[in-house]
């Protein structure tokens, strides 16, 4: 039987997805038995022009991680889509925009000003910011264009499957790869994961009625190890987030931040999370409610930690 041709690519991401792919350990050998890796910038030396030269649909499966933030990433996403029979969105950034997606609260100009001009550690007397093209004695140099808005992979190209996580857990990655090896991939559009219910369903903590007088950021409190973190006033996204991860963060006494994406049936993860958090505030006095809400320093960044570009509004309106 001919080997499966596999491509792996990264766009706007941190490199954690590559680590997650390697985390399958010796199972990688099983994968190599049946698959040839034809493109994987982190590990093998295949150039863009080599990919360009590949015939259409000659790659069987592409695992694409990272959000779409620049023209180069958009170009690669479209090219890999053309060259691949199956396109798999791998990890929270590709699926929903992820952490880079929080840039959608700003635009390019604001981000460049902050990063290249304003930060305390910046030493940039000439005020140079990235340009897409510049002429130098040696010729013309160019850089990809930095977009105002981060997009997810499914907002950029047609995607066949989604593997959730930041990064996807080893068992989630293997679930997908095993299905691929055995040629038992689920129907197109599926999210490949173990659990379709909320993280709370995986979470071993005891859950009682939730009534909260004060919200804490994780560093402000030493939480009880056994009791639901939301009950203790820690903003835990488990209620709004699809399970399948095994509630790893909760087992380490840290709140869920929402990386496995919205729980089934929910389109806007952040709005759902906000709704749950607000409902448990233990007060009927508007002033007290306002002061409890003051504890939540960054609602948009907390509720849409991984899903801002995938949300209903997609980005902030900035002037």
């Amino acid at each position: 039987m001919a080997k499966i041709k596999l491509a792996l690519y990264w766009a706007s991401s941190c490199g954690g997805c590559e680590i997650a792919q390697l985390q399958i350990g010796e199972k990688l050998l099983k994968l190599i038995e049946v698959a040839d890796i034809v493109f994987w910038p982190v590990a093998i030396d295949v150039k863009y022009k080599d990919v360009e030269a590949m015939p259409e649909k000659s790659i069987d499966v592409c695992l694409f991680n990272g959000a779409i933030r620049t023209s180069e990433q958009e170009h690669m996403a479209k090219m890999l889509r053309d060259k691949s029979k199956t396109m798999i969105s791998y990890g929270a950034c590709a699926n929903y925009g992820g952490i880079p997606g929080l840039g959608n609260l700003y635009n390019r100009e604001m981000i460049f000003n902050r990063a290249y001009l304003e930060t305390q550690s910046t030493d940039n007397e000439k005020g140079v910011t990235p340009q897409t093209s510049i002429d130098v004695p040696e010729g013309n140099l160019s850089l990809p264009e930095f977009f105002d808005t981060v997009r997810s992979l499914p907002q950029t190209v047609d995607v066949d499957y989604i593997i959730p996580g930041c990064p996807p857990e080893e068992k989630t990655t293997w679930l997908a790869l095993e299905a691929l090896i055995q040629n038992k991939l689920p129907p197109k559009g599926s999210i490949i994961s173990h659990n379709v219910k909320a993280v709370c369903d995986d979470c071993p903590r005891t859950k009682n009625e939730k009534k909260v007088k004060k919200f804490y950021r994780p560093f402000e409190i030493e939480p009880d190890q056994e009791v639901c973190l939301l009950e203790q006033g820690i903003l835990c996204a488990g209620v709004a987030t699809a399970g399948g991860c095994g509630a790893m963060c909760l087992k380490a006494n840290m709140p869920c931040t929402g990386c496995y994406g919205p729980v089934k049936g929910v389109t806007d993860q952040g709005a759902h999370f906000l709704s749950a958090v607000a409902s448990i505030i233990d007060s009927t006095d508007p002033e007290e409610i306002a002061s409890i809400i003051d504890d939540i320093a960054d609602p948009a960044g907390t509720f849409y930690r991984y899903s801002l570009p995938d949300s209903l509004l997609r980005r902030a309106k900035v002037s």
Partner: protein
Amino acid sequence: MSWEPRIVGFLCSWCSYRGADLAGTSRIPSAPNVKVIKVPCSTRVEPAFVIKAFQSGADGVLILGCHPGDCHYIEGNYKTMRRVPLLKKMLKQFGIEEERVRLDWVSASEGEKYASVVNEMTEKVRELGPFKANNGEGQHGKN
């Protein structure tokens, strides 16, 4: 044609919707800018509904429920009372002014109040001007 504020009004069926009815049958004039959606309780209005309204072209969202203590479902409106301020705080980060969302209480007997809340809200939104959601659909995600 000159711009007119478009406001989505979510009205609880037990109190505020009847209040709006009373305003109508009592022939109390009120601005025609609020498009009313009847909901079983103000707490049926998920934050996503409000966000969806803005995404779909609303310039403002008005949520009206029973007075605190009068909820047909005992404490639905208290949940709304907690949600709306947090939602407003978050929407501010999205560039949506807090005044574009208003929560108020209108009972079935308060036709006058319904009309005045609607008029005030309409004028407030008129002052703020049109809201155009920006979903970054433009070329290169231009905003």
